[in-house]
């Protein structure tokens, strides 16, 4: 545990001092051949673009769907309703919901617990079929494993495998050729800040680190859509903030369409480029709010969190969530 704590501590200084720069340098170091100038974060990112050594489209690789003509991860919900149970026991969980999430958007679904936001995410992931209406991802009905990467509320790692084993499994399912696993593994671990933990058992690492592995695992397949279901709810505030920074960064770097479920207005405003507030069960759209906060490389997360604009939005969303839950 002590090494994990040291690691977490190292990440604390990320945005303010040298620790963050070396972190960024390390991320880049994996992906480029030469060492990078130990410059500011923004510079190294600009030099690198999205952290990806290869060109986005490789003809020999079937699982690289984020090229220009590949599926874009856009989500389309038409009159979606979902019920659990049958007959008199039927409980309406969601809907009706009409929603379009264009490619590249970071949508955050907010609502009080039990409002059906997780159900909505499961429908988008393709784990369940809606009882009414249609769900489409990249223009087709969603299929688990191919249309979206998913991070769940709990890490759901395989305890019989090490950190490395968990990632390898994801790479194998994604169809990545075995020869490229070491490189991709290192890349994924660097992206979630977990270098050096490959050989650890997943029960030996902290909850925050486990969720990072889960995030890396979900990124392995490079699906055009990333779905996260309250992934940080069980973590302490400090770890949660760090992981939020990471998710924001990953989304900005990869340009992936993202749907993130949370009950926290704070988290929603920080992460989302658009926020949808759901009413209480059966959840329908109560508020659809674009967020104009700066995104992309070079944004100081702490400054952003302290800005007046952020706090005004947060208050607005928090009020909306409260009144939507009461309505």
């Amino acid at each position, binding site marked *: 545990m002590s090494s994990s704590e040291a690691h977490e501590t190292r990440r604390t200084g990320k945005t303010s001092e040298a620790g963050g720069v070396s972190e960024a340098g390390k991320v880049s170091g994996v992906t480029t051949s030469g060492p990078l100038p130990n410059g500011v974060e923004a510079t190294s990112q600009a030099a690198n673009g999205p952290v990806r050594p290869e060109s986005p489209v490789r003809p020999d690789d079937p699982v690289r769907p984020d090229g220009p003509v590949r599926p874009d991860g856009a989500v389309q919900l038409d009159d979606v309703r979902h019920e659990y149970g049958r007959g008199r026991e039927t409980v309406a969980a969601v809907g009706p919901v009409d929603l379009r999430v264009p490619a590249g958007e970071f949508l955050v679904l907010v609502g009080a617990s039990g409002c059906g936001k997780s159900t909505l995410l499961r429908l988008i*992931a393709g*784990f369940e079929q809606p009882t009414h209406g249609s769900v489409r991802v990249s223009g087709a009905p969603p299929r*688990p*494993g*191919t249309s*979206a*990467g*998913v991070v*769940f509320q*709990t*890490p*759901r*790692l*395989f*305890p*019989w495998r090490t950190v490395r084993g968990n990632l390898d*499994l*994801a790479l194998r*399912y*994604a*169809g990545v050729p075995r020869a490229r696993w070491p490189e991709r593994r290192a890349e994924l671990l660097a992206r979630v800040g977990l270098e050096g933990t490959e050989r650890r*058992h*997943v*029960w030996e690492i902290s*909850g925050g680190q*486990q969720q990072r592995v889960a995030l890396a*695992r*979900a990124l*392995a*397949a490079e699906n055009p859509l990333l779905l996260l279901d309250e992934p940080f709810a*069980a973590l302490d505030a400090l770890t949660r903030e760090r992981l939020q920074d990471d998710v924001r960064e990953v989304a900005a770097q990869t340009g992936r369409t993202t749907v993130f479920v949370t009950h926290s207005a704070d988290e929603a405003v920080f992460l989302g480029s658009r926020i949808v507030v759901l009413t209480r069960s059966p959840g329908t759209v109560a508020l659809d709010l674009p967020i104009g906060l700066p995104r992309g490389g070079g944004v100081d997360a702490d400054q952003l969190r302290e800005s007046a604009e952020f706090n005004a939005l947060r208050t607005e969303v928090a009020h909306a969530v409260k009144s939507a839950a009461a309505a």
Partner: protein
Amino acid sequence: MSTTPPLSEAEAEPGSAAAVADRPPVRRRPRARPRAGARARHALLPLGSLLLFLALWQVLAVSGTWSETLVPPPAKVWDAFLDVSTTHDGVRGYNGTYLVEHLGTSLRRIGLGAGLGIALGVLFGLLMGTVGWVRSLFEPWITFLRTLPPLAYFSLLIIWLGINEEPKITLLAVAAFPPVAVSTTTAVAAVPRSLTEAARALGASRWDVVRDVVVPSALPETLTGIRLAVGVAYSSLVAAELVNGLPGIGGMVKDAANYNNTPVVLVGIIAIGVSGLVIDALLLRLERAVVPWRGRTSP
């Protein structure tokens, strides 16, 4: 093992005899010492109980309550042990075979029979745990089989398979099969949906899920089933070797019993028990090595 709570440690008078004799340097490393003590107690307790048992046995034997044929003294049993382990008066061990060879023959039968039963049990368990109708089809049969005492079907096996190795190995296989099948079925059916779903979300095929999630997830329970199965096979050993069981440790026991040779019967029983203990310890060790994640559920 209960280690002394730290509270009483603080309460103990620093100079009192009990505190000094019990654990003088405990204060520095309050954890390491009791743990070492506990380990010693773990080893000493069984040893102590064994000595006590031998003493009681000796007392009982010399008291003359029962005849020596019924309760031979420990020394006689030890002599019998030496007899069946060596060549004496031109006789090689028991019935021309040393004790170790009797035991070896029996272990080979157990290895083959229980191995077969375990392999089938795992296979059936996987099938029954994953495919609903297979479970409905076979579960009553397995429960039926499980409740039968091995002796009940041994006669039938002899009628069908003769008196050589086949009925013995079959009996051990039939005895070992149900525990593994039942535990594997239960474990497979109880695989956390959160994990199978996580695998599916990563793009796993149905077969991938079985191989990478279902099997490892069920493995701890299956290994417990295997330990049970080996135990059941062991306890069926004498039954399996009732007919034409020589050489074989069970056959030896049966044969010696025919001649009221109680010391050899006891030697055989002790040999079966001790080898069973050793094998169980090995299986336990294997289990720890193979499933280090046992009890560590993934959140």
